[in-house]
């Protein structure tokens, strides 16, 4: 059943992505309903999978890299479902679907690992890990919004905008959405650190340093944006690169967590 719900989620995201490609290829940009529905069904199937895993392991279902990636892709999809319509960010689903699908496929392709319930004795550790991943989800969606900004800015600079230009949101809205998402991610990551301290986790070692590095990078980005030193393009680029780095470091942190 777990595997079926996981495959169902992947198929939903695949449909969303395929539909996007087909629609864009045909010159249609009104993706709205189908795309959103497919993403919502994908997230629902993932929720069911995570629920089943959580129930069988009696802990937050992030006990190996595969589960961690699924939790992350679920966080991104969920935040998109909340943020996308609120901001009227048309086409955001088109940019989110490939990222969510990629994470999901990697998770599916990873060899089956044993679920390590390393935080079962302490709920604060569980909160710490879950908050970290939801923060990553917010950073992931900020990266999506940042990439949309770069595409739209490129269209504006080109002075010969392609049809997609008319359907992408204004750069100011994208910039604002990116900033808010980074703030959300940053606050969640900070809370995750606080819960880590409450759980008496070690404030030294590789895992702590890598996590601190990510926190510091986002803090620096927010500080530079607040002080008006970052243009929209640099801000969006920094957010996209920071998430790429966070994504690269995620398996490392996950491995180090398992040993902790």
């Amino acid at each position, binding site marked *: 059943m777990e595997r079926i719900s996981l495959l169902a989620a992947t198929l939903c995201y695949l449909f969303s992505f395929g539909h996007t490609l087909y629609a864009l290829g045909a010159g249609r940009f009104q993706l709205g309903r189908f795309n959103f529905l497919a993403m919502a069904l994908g997230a629902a199937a993932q929720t069911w999978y995570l629920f089943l895993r959580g129930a069988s392991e009696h802990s937050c279902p992030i006990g190996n890299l595969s589960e961690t990636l699924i939790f992350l892709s679920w966080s991104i999809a969920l935040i998109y479902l909340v943020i996308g319509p609120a901001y009227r960010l048309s086409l955001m689903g088109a940019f989110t679907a490939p990222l969510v699908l990629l994470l999901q496929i990697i998770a599916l392709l990873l060899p089956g690992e044993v679920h390590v319930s390393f935080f079962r004795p302490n709920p604060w550790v569980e909160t710490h890990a879950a908050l970290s991943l939801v923060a990553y989800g917010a950073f992931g969606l900020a990266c999506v919004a940042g990439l949309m900004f770069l595409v739209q800015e490129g269209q*504006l600079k080109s*002075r*010969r905008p392609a*049809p997609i*230009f*008319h359907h992408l949101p*204004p*750069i100011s809205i994208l910039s604002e959405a990116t900033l808010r998402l980074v703030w959300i991610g940053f606050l969640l990551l900070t809370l995750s650190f606080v819960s880590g301290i409450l759980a008496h986790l070690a404030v030294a070692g590789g895992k702590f340093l890598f996590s601190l590095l990510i926190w510091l990078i986002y803090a620096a980005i927010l500080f530079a944006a607040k002080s008006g030193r970052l*243009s929209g393009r*640099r801000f969006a680029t920094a957010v996209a690169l920071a998430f790429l780095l966070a994504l690269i470091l995620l398996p490392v942190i996950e491995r180090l967590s398992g040993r902790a």
Partner: protein
Amino acid sequence: MRDNEMEELLGRLRSIEGVSGAVMLSTCNRVELYASSLCPLRALDGFRKILSERAGLEAPLYYHATPEAVRHLFRVASGLDSMVIGETEILGQVKKAYSAAADAGAATRPLHKLFQHAFHVAKSVRTETQITSGPTSVGSVAVELAGKIFGSLKERRVMILGAGEISERTARSLQSRGVKSVIVSNRTYERAAELAAEIGGMALHFDHWEKSFADIDILISSTNAPHAILTPEKIAPLLKLRRAAPLFVIDLAVPRDADPSINEMEGVFLYDIDSLEQIAAQSLDIRKQEVIRCESLIDQHVGGFLSWMRTIHSPDQHHIGRMA
């Protein structure tokens, strides 16, 4: 055609022998009568007489019977028969005409069905094709670009450098979208003051325009300067005052006021008159390419409507559209 005259006119149209129902569409670009009638040619004569009385001259008319009249209305409501293909204002006008006829009790069952169907067709055409895609005039292109940079224009400030006619029109387009304020600066201060008074803006001496640079979001430039006045060297220090806020520069001058390389500067978006016109032409091209898809959609709907007409078995089934 004034709104208050419509009821009386519809009454007169219905008094034409053989006409059971009528909807009158009157815009700045067309006068059309849609009527259900058993004797279309007699109805046409009656309409011609009424029109001649009103206009005082023999108006040139053309007319369609079903199914061409049905297709014509669907095309009109979808904006395919408009001067600017795909414009959407006409749909509101068609709705208003139908509403007036319905209120006056002049719309018969086939006309009700016909117009409801036409609104549905117009919606389908709009959502399933790109017939309304993109702006089609320099002013509307500027407005769309500004919208794609700033989102809402309500808090945006505009500066006009050089009080030319085209910059005035562009500023008015932006004003129609609610920009917060407009500053006009011209080498001749009196002309700046004159234009500022006309559009409800504020005049500024040309020597002082750089001082307001940090506060503006959109710069429309159309001076008669023989060389570029907006160069990277001049703009770079001013941009620092803007705390990375974007700047939209619309260069309408010939020769150009802005050095093209300022478009490479971060946060600066430069469009000259050629690029604005090119975008408008591009949008029109897209719309023209979409016409075939629209016609095909309309054909399907005409077929659907005619099928419905066959089911009602009413002798009251002729629709005529006439235009002057």
